[in-house]
């Protein structure tokens, strides 16, 4: 039973990582798109929202089973407070930090229509911190002794970094136009 929980925790961890990376890539496609194609934007917006939510479900499973199983010592406190686990405190702690950030991102997104856009945006941007933290956590712990799982982590890292580098150089499709309008002055 205990071993089953341990495997369940690892499996949900890997699924969460894949879903997190997918959500991140979709989110960046949405915020950094070059040209607006209504149908694509709609599908991407929906997927970003629902895969993100689905990921939270897997992650809750991952954290719960990691706490419940007694194969390694991770207490209930470690679910929310980083660096308190008896087992690999540093790498488990990174996962805790990522989980805390994710909870903040999920809650603010659920309340998006009730809080200010600036507050939502500020918290949502923390996703860029969440992802590498989760990636290192996954790389150092769950997938260390399985080449196939490690490959999944590396693939997520490569996909995410490609998307981030694309996002950095992507500009809004009419930024050039806005710039030229501003340059014309007001007279």
């Amino acid at each position, binding site marked *: 039973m205990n071993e089953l929980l341990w495997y369940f925790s690892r499996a949900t961890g890997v699924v969460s990582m894949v879903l997190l990376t997918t959500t991140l890539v979709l989110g960046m496609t949405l915020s950094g*798109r070059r*040209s*607006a194609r*209504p149908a694509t*934007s*709609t599908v991407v*917006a929906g997927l970003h929202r629902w895969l993100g939510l689905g990921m939270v479900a897997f992650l809750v499973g991952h954290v719960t089973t990691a706490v419940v199983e007694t194969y390694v010592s991770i207490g209930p406190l470690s679910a929310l407070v980083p660096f308190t686990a008896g087992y690999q405190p540093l790498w488990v702690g990174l996962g805790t930090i990522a989980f805390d950030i994710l909870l903040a991102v999920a809650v603010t997104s659920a309340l998006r*229509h009730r809080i200010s*856009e600036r507050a*939502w945006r500020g918290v949502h941007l923390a996703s860029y911190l969440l992802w590498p933290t989760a990636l290192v956590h996954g790389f150092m712990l769950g997938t260390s002794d399985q080449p196939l799982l490690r490959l999944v982590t590396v693939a997520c890292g490569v996909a995410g970094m490609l998307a981030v580098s694309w996002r950095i150089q992507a500009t809004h499709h009419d930024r050039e136009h806005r710039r030229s309008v501003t340059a014309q002055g007001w007279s």
Partner: protein
Amino acid sequence: MPAAREQATRVAVDRIACTGHGVCAALLPRQITLDEWGYPIVAAADDPAVDVEAAVRLCPARALRPSRTTPQ
């Protein structure tokens, strides 16, 4: 007001917030068409309330809100 929200068959667009993703045009084809830069043009037509709710929720710029009044 959840009751008003459930029944709204039209949207109002916050043009300052709008970033021209076109999600509203894809979900509300009767009342929204896009101009040549991809920003919405609102017509006096109704779409199903369920689609209005989805569009309000999915707008990436949070630039939509349910409305029951006819646009000018």
